[in-house]
């Protein structure tokens, strides 16, 4: 579904990603593990078009997308939940969800999608008139994910959905990710809670200093002595 080959990304003259290759198949949940500054968020931003790669290719459903602007990439079915959610703080919960269905193809189904989302996240229905700014951290993260579902995506890029949340809330947010996974969406996730996130995943990548160092399925990551020591803390 998503195929990335030899991606090189720079901030000015500073290279952040070095020959990164990665793929996500239909319905698959892939997690990227690595320390801060390894380039995981940069990778997601490059896929969604917020950043432009200097070289390399990104193919989505057989179509090269590395030169498309962000708003055209969403159109193709890739949605990106940035770190911290990046909600529109002065819009209500309902309005945040409504912007999520801005795409022409999503608008006609907006009412049905909204109903489905309220069923998944009843709290959003209760709080629909509240400003996004006034929600708690966990609720905001749920709203950010729900907002992206409104665009009727095929692939969801999740950047640290548990960032800055209390441990109890982290479990809840990751449960939501699990529910979304169960609906058949493909997910590419960056997450610091490596152990919990690996349990959700089908496959994983290890990224360090802008390079992919290891690729494997859930089991091989959970059993890898280096990953257990450096990222799981066992």
């Amino acid at each position, binding site marked *: 579904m998503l195929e990335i080959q030899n991606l090189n990304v720079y901030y000015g003259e500073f290279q952040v990603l070095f020959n990164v290759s990665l793929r996500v198949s239909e319905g698959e949940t892939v997690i990227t593990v690595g320390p801060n500054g390894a380039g995981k968020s940069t990778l997601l931003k490059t896929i969604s078009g917020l950043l432009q790669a200097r070289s390399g290719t990104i193919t989505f459903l057989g179509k090269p997308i590395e030169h498309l602007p962000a708003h055209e990439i969403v159109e193709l079915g890739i949605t990106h939940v940035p770190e911290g959610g990046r909600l529109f703080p002065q819009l209500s919960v309902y309005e945040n969800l409504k912007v999520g269905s801005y795409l022409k193809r999503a*608008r006609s189904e907006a009412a049905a999608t909204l109903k489905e989302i309220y069923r998944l996240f009843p709290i959003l229905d209760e709080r629909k008139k509240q400003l996004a700014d006034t929600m708690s951290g966990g609720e905001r993260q749920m709203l950010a994910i729900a907002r992206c579902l409104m665009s009727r995506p095929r692939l969801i890029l999740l950047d640290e959905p548990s960032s800055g949340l209390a441990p109890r809330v982290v479990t809840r947010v990751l449960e939501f990710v699990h529910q979304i996974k169960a609906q058949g969406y493909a997910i590419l996730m960056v997450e610091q809670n490596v152990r919990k996130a690996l349990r959700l995943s089908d496959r994983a990548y290890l990224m360090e200093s802008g390079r992919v160092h290891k690729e494997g399925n859930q089991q091989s990551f959970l059993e890898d002595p280096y990953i257990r020591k450096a990222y799981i803390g066992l």
Partner: protein
Amino acid sequence: MLELLLNAAINGVLLGGVLALLAFGMNLIFGVVKIIHMAYGQCVMLGLYFIYTLAVPLGLPLILACIISLPLMGIVGIALQGLVISPLLTAKANPLTQLLALAGLTIVFENLAQVIWGADLRGINVQLPVIHFGSIFLRTSNLIAFVGALLTLLGLYMFLNRTYLGLAIRSIAQDLDSARLMGINPRAVYYLTMAAGGILTALIAAFFSPIYAVHPHFGGSFTMMAFIIVVLGGMGNLLGGFIGAFIIGIVTSLSAALTSTEIADILALVIFIAVILVRPQGLLGIRVTK
């Protein structure tokens, strides 16, 4: 004396309505395109000249002249975005450069107007009746401008709150990258905003046309007034701008009645400086902590 003050206050409210519309346009452009449109009053001036040209030398009915000037000023807005603002944004020009470029534009507009229409006052000779309520007298033209401005603001409010496009505009104003991730094309919204901002100046010009005669330096004080209101209300805050417009309208109108129009302008600027000193984020602005 009391009658004078009452009349001045009422005229201040009427003026406030049109100023609210003017400030709305500048605020919208600042919120979305993140540019302080220092030539906004000059666009009103240009709109007045368009209406004058269509109505007097070309002899069209005033209403028709006003309607034709709406798309014309919309085109001016689009041209400004394409020729001036878009290159500034592409070059990631710093705010001072942007401000200077827009300030330079005021000189271009004013001198262009002087070359084309000359330095004389150009007005449309329309006398609308004055309505008396006891000791209060209202000019119909001011009343039309006030009601028209309020209806326009109501329409814009509905547009921003009820439509997808309005929602896109508000989203971009709050978080550009997030808006792009929702599938919103910022370039298209910038052009749309500048076109709408241009059409608004023509509308204001239409409301002004039976009240004022235009000259090349007509716009300067309105740019200043709009800017003061926008800062007073909190930059980018539309409700703050609305309230600020009536404060400035009433204050300048009262002080003009009590002293002179020059003192009124000074007072408006004193309010402006006081706001910057005491509450830099404006009446309803949010303090930026990042």
